[in-house]
């Protein structure tokens, strides 16, 4: 028993990998696989068509085209820097590899060289990221070709695919390097900030000095070719290879945590259980409430306001990273709404998703009650009243998020996107509906029950539509809250006799979303009563 040998050959790993593939294949229904491939292809085609339609085919003016050529590489580079920053952050927490828990337990604890054992998984990760980047890059390039000219889709698509693939491969490589070198989370944050800061400086100074900017230059090759931008391919290759070669140093502790949590997140996503996804993501990133609150408050006291005070106490224990995330979501929402007002309508969806995610975060106290139903149900309170009592503090948080968005829009206006007075007036009218509907959208998702596993007897197509509606209706509510920006934009371009100011038009248009928001609050309060009144169950018979 004490004799120890470890002359394991890599071929043993390959042999068993083949056996596992064979067993998995035996459990797959071929027709089910084809059906899923068909649905995926259909969904992608619909997404491209809708995006194409939303962006439109109007060619940009020569002045705008000049702007794209001069400032585009920097802006694209900034977007790429954000992708790289996310990859570095992921790597500093053990990502991007998600290994099967059994591989962590059995292969990584076996006397085999970890770099060899993990090489194929790392190569797969780089390959997959490159493929995803390639598809997204090609799609974006085709959309850009509609408005920018430069030889049309045949010229743009290969370039977009190449840049997208390079970004995907580099992002995976960066993550693997950070994971393999065990870069600490704080160091990962610094590197991420440096990457974004470098690209941000490029944008601010109107120059291209970063590799991300070079990739941005290459992305615009159909408009103008920069020979230097081709050189970045070598950097991409070096980073990707370094990631694969150095992955053997990854932390087993982080690999095991990711293995467990990532599989749970996937399962929660299949159930569209966003609350669970939020909780698991926090565990994955080790985001915990502060042991010491930012401000220590007095006793909770009594009466109705005890719920508010409890919520404020929860707020006082939010970690700094969550506060930063809410601020970033506010900035994204504000920037996207500014872009919407400037003419790019689809950005309203980006703003809505950002506010929806902020709403999910802000509703933490209510979500805690939903997570632990035994706690509130054991108290002599009406469930609806308790839910409603949880609303004011998250609403105040959402107002702050909306204010951050407003400030962002004012900054973008000052940078020349449109006039500052317009940002001041239209932005001010948006704060209340955006905050309210962001909260209601989040609440709708938090209190939503998991999908029923059977009993509906619906055809597959109807069940599919129902599933999609379940997923999109909560964020769609937030879009309603942002419609005043569209009305304001329409008023700005309206030249008729009954012309109203954009701010006034937005204020008038706020009536609908605020009404919807109040109805949403009413639903939160009287949910059970409404269900009871619509229930088909007959009342109990009288004796």
């Amino acid at each position, binding site marked *: 028993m004490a004799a120890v040998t470890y002359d394991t050959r890599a071929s*043993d790993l390959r042999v*068993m990998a083949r056996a*596992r593939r064979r067993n998995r294949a035996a459990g797959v229904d071929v027709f089910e696989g084809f059906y899923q491939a068909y649905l995926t292809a259909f969904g992608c085609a619909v997404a491209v068509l809708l995006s194409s339609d939303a962006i439109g085919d109007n060619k940009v003016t020569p002045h705008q085209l000049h702007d794209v050529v001069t400032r585009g590489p920097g802006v694209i580079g900034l977007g790429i820097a954000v992708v790289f920053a996310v990859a570095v952050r992921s790597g500093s927490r053990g990502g991007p590899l998600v290994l099967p828990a059994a591989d962590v337990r059995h292969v990584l*604890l*076996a006397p085999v060289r970890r770099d060899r054992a993990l090489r194929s998984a790392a190569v797969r990760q780089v390959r997959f990221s490159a493929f995803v980047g390639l598809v997204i890059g090609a799609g974006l390039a085709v959309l850009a070709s509609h408005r920018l000219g430069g030889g049309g889709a045949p010229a743009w698509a290969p370039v977009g695919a190449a840049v997208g693939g390079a970004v995907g491969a580099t992002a995976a490589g960066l993550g693997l390097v950070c994971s393999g070198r065990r870069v600490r989370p704080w160091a990962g944050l610094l590197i991420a900030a440096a990457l974004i800061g470098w690209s941000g400086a490029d944008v601010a100074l109107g120059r291209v000095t970063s590799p991300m900017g070079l990739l941005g230059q290459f992305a615009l090759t159909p408009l103008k070719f920069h020979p230097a931008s081709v050189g970045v391919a070598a950097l991409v290759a070096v980073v990707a290879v370094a990631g694969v070669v150095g992955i053997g140093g990854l*932390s087993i502790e982080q690999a095991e945590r990711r293995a467990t949590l990532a599989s749970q997140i996937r399962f929660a996503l299949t159930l569209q259980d966003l609350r669970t996804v939020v909780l698991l993501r926090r565990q994955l990133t080790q985001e915990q409430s502060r042991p010491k609150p930012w401000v220590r408050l007095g006793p909770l006291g009594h009466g109705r306001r005890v719920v508010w005070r409890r919520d404020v106490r929860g707020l006082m224990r939010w970690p700094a990273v969550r506060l930063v995330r809410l601020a970033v979501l506010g900035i994204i929402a504000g920037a996207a709404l500014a872009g919407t007002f400037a003419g790019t309508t689809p950005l309203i969806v980006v703003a809505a998703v950002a506010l929806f995610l902020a709403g999910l975060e802000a509703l933490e106290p209510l979500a805690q009650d939903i997570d632990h139903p035994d706690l509130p149900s054991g108290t002599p309170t009406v469930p609806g009243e308790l839910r409603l009592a949880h609303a004011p503090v998250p609403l105040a948080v959402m107002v702050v998020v909306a204010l951050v968005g407003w400030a962002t829009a004012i900054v973008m206006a000052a940078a020349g996107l449109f006039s500052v007075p317009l940002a001041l007036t239209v932005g001010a009218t948006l704060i209340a509906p955006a905050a309210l509907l962001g909260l209601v959208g989040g609440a709708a998702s938090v209190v939503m029950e998991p999908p029923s596993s059977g009993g509906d007897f619906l055809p597959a197509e109807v069940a599919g539509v129902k599933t999609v509606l379940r997923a999109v209706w909560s964020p769609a509510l937030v879009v309603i809250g942002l419609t005043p920006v569209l009305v304001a934009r329409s008023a700005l371009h309206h030249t008729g006799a009954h012309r109203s100011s954009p701010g006034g038009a937005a204020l008038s248009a706020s009536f609908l979303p605020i009404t919807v928001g109040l109805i949403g609050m009413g639903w939160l309060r009287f949910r059970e009563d409404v269900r009871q009144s619509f229930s088909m169950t007959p009342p109990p018979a009288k004796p």
Partner: protein
Amino acid sequence: MTEDLAPALETVELAKSYGTHAALEPLDLVIDAGELVMLVGPNGSGKTTLLRMAAGLLEPTSGRVAIDGFPSGSLEARAALSFLPDNPVLYDDLSLVEHLHYIGRLHGVPGDELDERGAALMERFNLSNRADDLPVTFSRGLRQKTSIAVGLIRPFSVLLVDEPFVGLDQPGKEALTELLVDAYEQGATVIVATHALEFAQVANRCIGLRDGELAYDGEATPGQVERLVS
């Protein structure tokens, strides 16, 4: 010859904390080769943390742990050590016998020896008729037995076992106790974290932890163990 002189398990100022919570206070411990050790303590005392750091699954916050003189997690330590966790972690796409072959081959066990040892282990746990079934279809107890068989199929000089009796039926508990004693009698160092008081009758050393600190180290009767656990 380092292996012959070094303790089977040695910790030096080994500590683990999560934020401000100390799961294990700095711990100095030496377990010599050939000991059968019972690791006891109430829930949250640091038993699992200690075993997982020794196995290389957790990284110490400070200090170090060595197996047969080699740093935990190193190639040599992984070759010397087998860890039986409290929660079975198995592949969904490998049958029971494929698990035994895979893990055995990863640890360099020759094919013919694998067949023989695998058959003996399955026989011992009454699993022979499930050899070609996927463990994902097994009950909790059968999965636990599979996990134990997987841990014992390969060669080891140090065996770490965390709460092994949870989920096992009485014959399974008896078979496992026999296997652990067999491993000990063949010269392996066996360290078992358990709440099963009767294991004190076979262990020749008891280490008690409480609140992440060493609370007891020596021989112990079931009565003494009960006090340590409570």
